[in-house]
């Protein structure tokens, strides 16, 4: 059947593209070729930098949610439907983003360096 070959080729194409792109990006993130300087640091209104716990928690929640969802997809991959994300997970992720954005807004718009310059 020619359509079997087409289907096989589509799978191969998407797999090579997504897999290749993900592999290149992951490799460059790990080797520093994609800039990750100050990923977990914030900037105050006056331009000074500070270590940012709100970014750390967002990183943890992002990676946790991503792995949790991928695991769910792997377990239900033959079902033909994308697994849903629970309301609790969405609430946690939303809260994490709210903390990150709140912290960023406060430090960037209102907080100055305490040196009185």
């Amino acid at each position, binding site marked *: 059947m020619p359509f079997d070959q087409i289907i096989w080729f589509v799978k191969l194409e998407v797999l090579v593209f997504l897999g290749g792109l993900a592999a290149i990006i992951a490799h460059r993130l790990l080797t520093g070729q994609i800039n990750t300087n100050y990923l977990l640091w914030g900037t105050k209104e006056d331009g000074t930098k500070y270590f940012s716990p709100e970014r750390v928690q967002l990183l943890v929640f992002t990676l946790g949610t991503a792995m949790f969802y991928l695991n769910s997809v792997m377990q239900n991959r033959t079902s033909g439907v994308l697994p849903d*994300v629970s309301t609790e997970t969405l609430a946690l992720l939303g809260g994490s*983003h709210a903390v990150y954005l709140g912290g960023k807004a406060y430090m960037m718009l209102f907080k100055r360096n305490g040196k009185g310059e």
Partner: protein
Amino acid sequence: MLLLLLLQASQSTPQWTERWVGTLAAWVALGFLGLIGVAILYNVFTGRIDLSGLISEPTGDASMSRFQLLVFTFVIAASLFLIIASAAPPAFPKDIPSGILVLLGISSSSYLVSKGIQQSSPEGLSGRGPQVTIKTDRSETTFGGPSVQCQAEVLGLSDTTVTWAIDPIDFGEIDDNGKYTPPKSGQPTTVTVTATSKQDVGVSDKETIKVS
């Protein structure tokens, strides 16, 4: 050759022609998309498409809002591919769960709000430029008492070394490593320590130390 095949197809039964043309169109579309994919991957791999600033802000610092958007985009794309490819026969899901849409909405809107916050702050859009910041292990000392260790953090310059100076100039000593030693005696005074970049003398920072 292709024309001959098309001619042959047109003279055959309509059902056969329809299937043959459909298959040909599918292969042409796949070949085209495949070439685009290979071209993108090749240019990314060779550096012609520069990914070094993929998650960076205009200031050059990496951004968590960009990073989380990248992660969720890849996760949902990979999940969709797995679901489609694993079904027999492969099929696009009949509907996308609302939870997925909300998740992508949270991720994207967080990125957008983050950009909005940066737009509201001049530091978010322009580079900070080079800067020196002094940190000290104490802000006060006594005559003949413990020395004060000063450290200079230099940002935005390739040469991170600084020269140290104090004012009043003869009120104690400061060495090349930023270690300030107070005098044995004198009137209580506030000493100003200055660190100046060796690469750019216009970039400096000041810190005060009380000596009593």
